């Protein structure tokens, strides 16, 4: 072992600081977008933000906590359903959208008691069963009219232009808050815990990680985020049909976005979401072949580029735009020239045993 500690563990690199400032500028720009662009652009951006929320939530679940769920559409549908219920019972419509998502998120806690005991594939299909059951039960509710569905008529109180702007701002705010929540959680203790669980659950437990509590936090966050995406989708499309909201295609989209962008990276799902949005924009009309293509691309990425586009760029160039992990910079100029960053997939080692990395690099 090398006891000579000549390195700096750093979080903010010059690049990540610049990227963070850029992100802030883009956000300010996005906030005033409804005043600058026409209706089509605003609607498209709203759709894009919902996709980004879904991608980031699924990535938090699968990429960081190692929980591959094929049933997140359960929460997507339930968020929309509870919003309709609340609005039906007289609640003002925009608060109902938010509270609907909160209720669906809260429902994830009792569900987590059963589901988080399941491992890998069992968890995946177990969640699918939950989604199917939620679908069937929601369709039984008389106000939903079975598979025919129902519309969120309370939205008619607003003019089309107002509605578009409010939907846009609410979706933007939801996306920013959820991204920030994931960012903060992953930077903290929880981020290290869940990644340790993902890499080896038994080992994580043995070094004192509270496995179930950490998983439950991420599970809840992802459920709430997907539920909010569902209720926002309801705000933009107005109509609610159980089959559409509880459909498995949402999971297909989420997996595609995350795999293409980069599973287990912070920036990856954002890039994957944008790519998915563009693909849908240009090829969505081709219908079924488009879905065949999505499935095939997801397989290819899972097999040949498991860290996705962004993960590969990160690995290749050792850059990270947003400071989620740590980078290691060596100072021993007699052996090593310039700065060097540790491979990102060894982030955990950076946290726990920096010496190891010095020897390896």
């Amino acid at each position, binding site marked *: 072992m090398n006891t000579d500690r000549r390195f700096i563990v750093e979080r903010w690199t010059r690049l990540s600081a610049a990227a963070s400032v850029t992100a802030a500028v883009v956000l300010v720009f996005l906030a005033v977008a409804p005043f600058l662009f026409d209706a089509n652009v605003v609607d498209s951006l709203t759709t894009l933000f919902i996709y980004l929320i879904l991608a980031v939530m699924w990535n938090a679940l699968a990429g960081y906590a190692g929980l591959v769920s094929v049933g997140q559409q359960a929460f997507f549908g339930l968020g929309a359903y509870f919003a309709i219920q609340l609005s039906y019972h007289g609640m003002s419509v925009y608060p109902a959208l938010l509270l609907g998502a909160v209720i669906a998120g809260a429902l994830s806690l009792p569900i987590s008691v059963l589901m988080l005991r399941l491992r890998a594939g069992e968890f995946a299909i177990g969640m*699918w069963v939950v989604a199917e*059951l939620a679908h069937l039960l929601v369709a039984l509710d008389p106000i939903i009219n079975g598979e025919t569905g129902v519309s969120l008529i309370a939205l008619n109180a607003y003019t089309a232009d107002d509605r578009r702007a409010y939907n846009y701002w609410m979706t933007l705010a939801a996306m920013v808050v959820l991204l920030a929540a994931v960012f903060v959680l992953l930077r903290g203790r929880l981020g290290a815990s869940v990644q340790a669980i993902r890499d080896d659950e038994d080992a994580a437990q043995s070094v004192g990680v509270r496995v179930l509590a950490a998983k439950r936090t991420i599970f809840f966050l992802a459920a709430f985020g997907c539920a909010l995406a569902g209720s926002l989708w309801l705000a933009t499309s107005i109509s609610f049909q159980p089959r559409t909201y509880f459909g498995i295609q949402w999971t297909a989209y989420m997996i595609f976005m995350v795999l293409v962008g980069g599973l287990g990276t912070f920036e990856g799902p954002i890039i994957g979401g944008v790519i998915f949005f563009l693909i849908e924009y240009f090829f969505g009309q081709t219908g079924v072949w488009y879905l065949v293509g999505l499935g095939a691309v*997801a397989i290819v990425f899972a097999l040949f580029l498991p860290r996705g586009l962004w993960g590969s760029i990160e690995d290749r160039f050792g850059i990270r735009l947003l400071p989620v992990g740590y980078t290691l910079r060596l100072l021993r100029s007699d052996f090593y020239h310039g700065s060097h960053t540790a491979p990102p997939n060894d982030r955990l080692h950076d946290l726990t045993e920096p010496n190891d990395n010095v020897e390896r690099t």
Partner: protein
Amino acid sequence: MTWVTQLLNGVLLGGYYALLACGLSFMFGVMRIINLAHGDLAILSACLVFLIADTTGISPFIALVAVLPVMGLVGWGLQRWMLERSLRAGVLVPLLTTFGLAIVIENGLFEYFGADTRSLAPYIGDFAYDSWEITSNVYVGSLAALIFALAVLLLGGLKLFLTYTPLGRAIRATAEDADTAALVGINARAVYAIAAAIAVATAGLAGIFLAMRAVFTPFSGPEQLIFAFEAVVIGGIGSLSGTLIGGIVLGVAQTLGAQINPQGFLITGHVVFLAVLAARLALGALRARGGIRGVFSRPS
């Protein structure tokens, strides 16, 4: 007497679920993979038999003999070109790739066959609705009975095959520890490919019988996967005889649930599945505290 008939129908439906779940359980037992395309592979095989029966007029029972080896080959190829690589990348990647495959198969079948609901029942003549009278008012469908018998034979046969044949021993050894099995001269790659071929062929068999006893569309696969998975989990994962029991429990629950409400068929099945999970959890927690006695007796 309708209740007795329903109960009997539920048990026989359980036979179908056991047939369907057999491949899923087997693949999980050997490779630790839950194949999310399992249901869609079953539907693929049903579509192939339908295509043969529809274009040539050959009986589905003969077409089946031709299609099953093809499904076996599909399973073999699946293992060689997709699962083998996925397995090396960790436990999550097989889930992602088989899910992607499910999407591809479903939508590919939809592209070719359209959304029409189909059935093989018109191609098997009287057999589709023949039934035997057990006592007055209690009837048993002959096709359902055949499927049940087939499920018992297949599960039993697979168990005997695994216990007594050299290949069965090789499969068990590889399932236990692939690296050690390779050390004693077993070709683990070949064993995995054979196991995948068996699993996919049995899924195909189940799909063909689904098409004979009911209707299907290109999008019926996910539902079949869920039923198979529920049967496997209710019966205890990894156990072939448990799969039969799990299938029967699921079939009976669904059939009785359908008596309560038209939607009750699916809902009851899912609820029973979740209840079994919850019960297993509660029992596990109880056992950790020293069983019922441990909970109630105070330490002295």
